[in-house]
């Protein structure tokens, strides 16, 4: 029996099963803090602990699912292509706004990290926090962070951003639909987009575009900024 728990089949069935139940719960309750990713991670950890299965065993068993992360990031290229028509006429302002937003986000974490005196590992873990999870984990891994912790931060930031975002935009008197959508997607990825869609169709589409742009810009900026800051 113990042997069965160590198999690939068990890891795969457990992962897909828990995810399905979490999705169902999320759709039924519509509570933002019951985000399926967060709930699934916690439930799977609880089950693994109960059955005394260590992470290395589970990781090997579930590798098939983990592999799909790469192709799904590539597939985002198609989604980005679908939304690229919203760039027309605003291409310079959209690209520069997201670029500046990405830099501000990365540098602010570096500064807080330096003030509190934490390790570079932790800084690299938090820096991709505004980027959609699969890209964020890839950036975190490349920069020497802890991808699993990044994944959880990304979801937490998404929930926080989608709640606080409309408040900040109102406070700053941002009324432009493009600006609102862009800000929500840049800071809070898919969860921000869900909020942006509720604001309107243009806000939603621009927000989707912002997810891809923020991912690319952050992937480029994190290594450059961290390299520059090594001189200070």
């Amino acid at each position, binding site marked *: 029996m113990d042997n069965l728990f160590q198999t690939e089949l068990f890891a795969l069935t457990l992962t897909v099963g828990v995810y399905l139940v979490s999705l169902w719960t999320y759709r039924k309750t519509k509570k933002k803090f019951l985000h399926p990713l967060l709930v699934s991670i916690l439930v799977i950890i609880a089950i693994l602990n109960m059955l005394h299965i260590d*992470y290395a065993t589970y990781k090997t068993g579930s590798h098939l699912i983990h592999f799909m992360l790469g192709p799904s990031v590539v597939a985002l290229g198609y989604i980005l292509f679908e939304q690229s028509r919203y760039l027309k006429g605003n291409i310079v302002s959209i690209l520069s706004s997201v670029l500046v937003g990405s830099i501000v986000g990365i540098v602010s974490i570096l500064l807080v990290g330096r003030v509190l005196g934490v390790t570079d590992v932790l800084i690299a873990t938090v820096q991709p926090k505004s980027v959609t999870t699969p890209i964020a984990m890839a950036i975190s891994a490349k920069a020497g962070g802890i991808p699993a912790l990044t994944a959880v931060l990304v979801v937490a930031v998404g929930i926080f951003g989608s709640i606080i975002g409309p408040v900040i935009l109102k406070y700053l008197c941002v009324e432009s639909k493009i600006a609102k959508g862009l800000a929500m997607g840049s800071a809070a990825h898919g969860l921000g987009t869900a909020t942006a869609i509720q604001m309107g169709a243009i806000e939603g589409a621009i927000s989707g575009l912002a997810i891809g742009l923020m991912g690319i810009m952050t992937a480029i900026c994190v290594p450059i900024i961290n390299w520059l800051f090594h001189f200070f």
Partner: protein
Amino acid sequence: MLKQIFNILFFYLMGELVSWLIGGFLPGSVIGMVLLFVALSFKVVKPCDVRDVSLHLTEQMGLFFLPAGVGLMTAVAVIAENWAFLLLSSLISTILVIGMVGWMQQKTGKKEIKHG
């Protein structure tokens, strides 16, 4: 369907190749995403040759990060020791990004026609 799967895998492979060529500076999957976007934009690849698989993959994305996300169980000590930094930096940075992007796009973008 098989052709679509091949296309995605092929762009992923090319992304990894470019990533290796530039010294691992950017993740291969992100480069693959950009390459696919460029290929679609310049009509090298037809949208219908990646569409269905792309929509399927992106729809199920949540599932795909679970194996790595469960790795959180190995990071409990790190979180316990550094929760103040994790919380503070995430909150400050998120507020700054939302404010900066929204404000700057409103300042620099074209004026939109207001409805209602």
